[in-house]
């Protein structure tokens, strides 16, 4: 899946007028007659970031799809080899920029595994609270943008974003920044929330199901939405497992694999929540997975606010500066809102990691895009891409 360019083909007919208009070029194939090769992106009107799909069409049907990415590659992993472990933490905010709290946690998890660092109880609960709030944020974004791709003129997007703004305001009051939170540290959390913050967060979480109910009333039974998403982009569970997909995309195909349950990350085993599973693996199932997961997140949050113990938020033995883990390797993984987010670190005893690798769930989930889109029209391909939930910061790092 390299970023190869259109080499060896004739001059293109570019469209004048609107920017972001796709470049089209007829492709002559001896078996199929005239196939049309369209390059959608990297500037899309239907966003998702700088991502390009080179789609070959036979009439309306897609016969071949090649995703091209790398437009947002920022050398994150190489930069991490040259900076200290702590200094990489703000960079992890910018990987999956919608879910900075859980990305921070995954990185902190890997480093704590590497150095054998303990984490106090209150910090564990806070981490779960932040991760589940992030899940609410991310899934709101996803359902909003999915409906935007489907053609509503921004209405469901703005409703979802209205709720997301309230959570982002909470993050700003706590960590100083809405999205680039830089909140987790090795051995705990950076800032202790005040009782006012906890009360406001608790009230918001209690109100959240009402927004979900309104959203579902508006959209889940909508006949046009059902016709556009059911049966579109089916994903076979065996293929999904073989390709290493994780997250709601995998669970929509019916595979029961949630790292919160499998690994028991942090204090998740203390919470009572269910994992929803789909049956058909189409776009509708992937959308409903997110809605149901949001409801489960609300349950987890309500339990967490009740059970949050008092105590320190950082382990007293944790060192901020001069952190040198012993030589070794560690892989720390989490159920981020997009899937299995993992950090693989190899340390050689120095203050900087010898190798730093991110397992980006968006990228791995994207590998089956072609299979999901074959046989559908180009309007469907945009919807399928939206339902996989990619963030280019994570795909390209």
């Amino acid at each position, binding site marked *: 899946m390299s970023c190869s360019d259109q080499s060896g083909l004739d001059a293109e*007919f570019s*469209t*004048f*007028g*609107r920017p972001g*208009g*796709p470049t*089209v070029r007829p492709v002559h194939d001896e078996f199929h007659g005239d196939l049309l090769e*369209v390059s959608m992106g990297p500037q899309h*009107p*239907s966003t998702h970031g700088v991502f390009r799909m080179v789609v070959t*069409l036979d009439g*309306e049907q897609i016969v071949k799809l090649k995703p091209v990415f790398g437009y947002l590659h920022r050398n994150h992993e190489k930069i991490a080899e040259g900076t200290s472990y702590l200094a990489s933490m703000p960079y992890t905010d910018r990987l999956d920029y919608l879910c900075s709290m859980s990305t921070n946690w995954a990185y902190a998890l890997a480093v704590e595994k590497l150095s054998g660092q303990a984490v106090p109880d209150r910090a564990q609960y806070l981490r779960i609270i932040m991760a589940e709030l992030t899940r609410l944020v991310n899934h709101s974004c996803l359902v909003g943008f999915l*409906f935007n*791709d*489907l*053609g*509503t*003129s*921004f*209405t469901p997007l*703005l*409703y979802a974003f*209205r709720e997301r703004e309230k959570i982002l305001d909470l993050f700003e009051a706590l960590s100083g920044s809405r999205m680039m939170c830089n909140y987790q540290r090795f051995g705990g959390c950076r800032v202790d929330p005040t009782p006012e913050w906890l009360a406001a967060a608790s009230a918001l979480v209690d109100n959240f199901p009402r927004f979900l109910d309104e959203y579902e009333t*508006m959209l*889940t*039974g*909508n*006949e*046009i*939405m*059902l*016709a*556009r998403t*059911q*049966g579109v982009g089916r994903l076979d569970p065996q293929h999904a497992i073989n390709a290493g997909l994780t997250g709601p995309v995998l669970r929509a195909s019916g595979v*029961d694999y*949630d790292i919160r*349950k499998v690994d028991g990350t942090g204090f998740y085993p203390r919470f009572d929540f*269910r*994992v*929803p*599973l*789909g*049956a*058909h693996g189409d776009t*509708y*199932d992937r959308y*409903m997975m997110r809605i*149901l997961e949001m409801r489960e997140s609300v349950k987890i949050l309500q339990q967490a606010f009740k059970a949050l113990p008092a105590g320190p938020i950082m382990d007293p033995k944790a060192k901020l500066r001069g952190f040198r883990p012993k030589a070794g390797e560690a892989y720390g993984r989490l159920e981020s809102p997009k899937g299995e987010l993992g950090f693989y670190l190899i340390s050689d005893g120095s203050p900087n990691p010898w190798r730093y690798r991110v397992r980006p769930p968006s990228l791995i989930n994207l590998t089956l895009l072609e299979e999901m889109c074959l046989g559908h*029209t*180009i*309007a*469907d391909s*945009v919807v399928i891409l939206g339902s996989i939930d990619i963030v280019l910061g994570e795909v390209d790092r």
Partner: protein
Amino acid sequence: MNLETLPLQFRDWIVSLFPGALQWFVHHLLSITAILTFFGLFFAFTTIAERKLLARLQNRLGPNRSGLPWFRRLKLWGLTQPFADAIKAITKEDVVPAVADKVLHFLAPVVIVAFSLLGFAVLPFGRHLIPVELDAAILYFFAAGTATELAIFMAGWGSRNKYSLLAAMRALAQLISYELPLILSVVPVILVVGTLSTSEIALAQGGWTWGIIPHWHVFTPWGFAGFVIFLVAALAESNRSPFDLPEAESELIAGHLTEYSGFKYALFFMAEYFGLTALSGLGVTLFLGGWQAPFAFLEFIPSWLWFMTKLAGMIVFFIWIRGTLLRLRIDQLTRLAWKFLVPLALLNLGNAAFWTLTAGWTGPLVLVRWGVSAAIVIVPFLLLGRRLSAGYAPRTYRYAA
């Protein structure tokens, strides 16, 4: 001073200022000027109303900062936004592709606006306020409206861009598919009233039962079905959501309007709004009683005000639909037209025929009449609806153990 006849008195006064030979000419020139000015301004305010209504629907404020040129403090709630947009559209550079067919490329926006405006000539805006009294008004209306589709093809062909031609053909497929339900939904009205003249159809919807239930066609079973089909078809004819696939951003090509910029682009959208307004006006005339008041005690309000209110109500409804619904895919769109709307419209025709034949029934037979008519509407709707939405249903989900 009678508010009801004020426009007519004004027109007669101006005509009387001119010598006899020119009077006919001035009379019609006034009608044309009045329609152009009034509906030009109506278009401007439809755009701002759309933006502000959509905004409120989406929990935000719409444009509210464009005040007046020299009095910066006065924001006027953003109501002068359309004039600002017009100035912007006029001053933009007009890019014409070098290989394009210059004549067709230039004529397409002109033709589409001209033919969309022609439809306004036969709408009865008030009791005696109809610009041209035609016996075959509805026929003329649809002839003029269908000619706008020609302009879309001119735009696609004249651009000399293979892909904008393909997109124009697809837009045309949508428009032609929905002409049929549009016209078929109107035929029952013609059948029942017995005339093609719009002013007589508006007159025929007068009268109230017990002073509060108007005799509008929409309050009869066949009229209600016809009105709903008309609404759906009108949305599709004006390329509005949920049928705005030709203008969609996620579609293959930017559409038949690719090669247009500046004022010509604005003209296409003006034509779309004029078409929508004209169709709404026709819908009001045929189904919502035209200029008739809804209740007997409200008859003192001038008839043209009623017409405008109903017209504005329909436009607000269309904007509401736009803010809520998703876009249909092209195959779903055409399937909806041919397999759902056309059969229902044909059955509606039979329903209207039954209604006309049983016009003489009185007493308890009136209930039978209404019941049978309602059944002819509801039963096929449920059957066809079930077939159309087969396989699509909300699902329940299981949870991992």
